[in-house]
């Protein structure tokens, strides 16, 4: 914890993400955007021009699956880092029941939230499931990957399974993109959030307003064991 002058007045800064967590998130974020652009180019003819960003449809065909592999590995890192703080709690239901206040930005009517609120937890768990679905169904659309997996497990996918894989892959991708839009929008709408992703810090006021339970813990953390016996 420290104070610094960011030009808008000195505010207390609270550390939210370590450097390695931010790099991990950047890897997933960049690969997600590349997957989104390359995937959409094959999703609908009106978006095929997006393939030009990668050097054409042929490049998209072989590159997209490998970016997917990068995302999966990166996402496993994020999952292991954050899943404990994303476990559901009783207050999540209260938060969800007051979703109207959330949308109005009336944070004072909401219960005190730990590191993640119910909305963030929803993003976390739904993307976790969708990444698994996209990876498994993506194998059905990736000839070399499919041949490898079939050899590994000694089975042969039927044509209807592969057709289903294509359908589910497209559907899961649409959901993942939709949730990603919510994720990005929330970070933009709730001002002061982006610095957590880029610099790893948020202001104390941001913590007080949106994640008070988390802030209390962070503030108490250094001193609790030494100075104050218990809260």
């Amino acid at each position: 914890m420290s104070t610094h002058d960011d030009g808008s007045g000195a505010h207390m800064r609270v550390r939210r993400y370590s450097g390695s967590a931010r790099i991990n998130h950047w890897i997933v974020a960049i690969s997600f955007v590349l997957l989104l652009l390359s995937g959409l180019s094959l999703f609908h003819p009106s978006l095929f021009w997006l393939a030009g960003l990668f050097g054409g449809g042929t490049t998209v065909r072989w590159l997209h699956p490998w970016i997917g592999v990068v995302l999966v590995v990166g996402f496993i890192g994020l999952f292991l880092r954050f899943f404990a703080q994303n476990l559901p709690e009783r207050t999540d239901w209260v938060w969800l029941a007051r979703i109207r206040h959330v949308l109005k930005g009336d944070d004072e009517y909401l219960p005190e939230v730990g590191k993640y609120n119910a909305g963030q937890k929803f993003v976390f768990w739904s993307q976790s499931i969708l990444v698994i679905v996209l990876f498994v169904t993506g194998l059905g659309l990736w000839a070399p990957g499919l041949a490898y997996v079939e050899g590994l497990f000694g089975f042969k996918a039927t044509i209807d399974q592969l057709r289903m894989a294509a359908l589910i892959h497209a559907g899961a991708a649409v959901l993942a993109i939709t949730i990603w839009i919510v994720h990005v929008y929330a970070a933009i709408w709730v001002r002061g959030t982006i610095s957590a992703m880029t610099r790893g810090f948020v202001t104390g006021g941001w913590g007080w307003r949106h994640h008070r339970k988390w802030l209390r813990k962070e503030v108490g953390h250094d001193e609790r064991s030494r100075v104050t016996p218990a809260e």
Partner: protein
Amino acid sequence: MFPAIPNPTTDKSNARFGEKDMIRRSASTITPPAKRQTEVAKLIDVSKCIGCKACQTACLEWNQLTEEVGVNVGVYDNPHDLTANSWTLMRYTEYENPESGNLEWLIRKDGCMHCEDPGCLKACPSPGAIVQYSNGIVDFVKENCIGCGYCIKGCPFNIPRISRADHKAYKCTLCSDRVAVGQGPACQKACPTQAIVFGTKDEMKAWAAKRIADLKSRGFAKAGLYDPPGVQGTHVMYVLHHADKPQLYAGLAENPRISPIVEAWKGVGKYAGLALIGLTAAAGVIHHLLQGPNRVTSEDEENAEKLAGGKS
């Protein structure tokens, strides 16, 4: 005998069909020509086939393809399946007819059926990689193919194959290059028994009717034409002695149609997906316009500092 197609002249002649005759182009919206060309068709009379594989050889020869030397596993099928080089394949089935007690050797020349409603074209995401001409020929355009293999998922007959050499999809072209100069396909030309004949679709239907009448007179009561309506008919048709049981012929599809899964994937699914993404983005913009940003107040900052100060 069906009248033989005369050899072409050696004079230069214009192609009889081309880009202006496209009625469908993958991942593209095109205006089909006002006038459709006469539909062509290849008729494969399974009852006349002697299994000599001249058609397979002629196909490799004309298209300048080479098949790998395979392994004999005790069946006549060679190669064992269609490949990116073998665009046609004789499939041999030994069938013991329970009614007559006869052993029947059913030999079906497999390959692209040139569907009127082609599933490969429907599934293809690459503009112009698959085209359909108004004479009924469905052709793959190599330069536009990206090798994704969606055509394989779209095909109700399991025909296209991706080359391991250049990662592009291949299948029978119905010898579109030969047809363009008034010739029949190479396989038809090579067939020694006229088990393969080529002409307009109407001619082929009329010829098939004669063949079917003949087969019926020889005791094949269920003889018939295979021109499946599920894909709005095909431009490669079979005369089958057991038209009621196409599955007998190395698993020829009973009622082929574009899979409903592919229809959902390529049809309503696309628009629903784009709509959902668009609406979510729009909801974000509208929410921000109506609500304005959710800013941290100076009061929040003071409270945080108080909290931190109180602790230390």
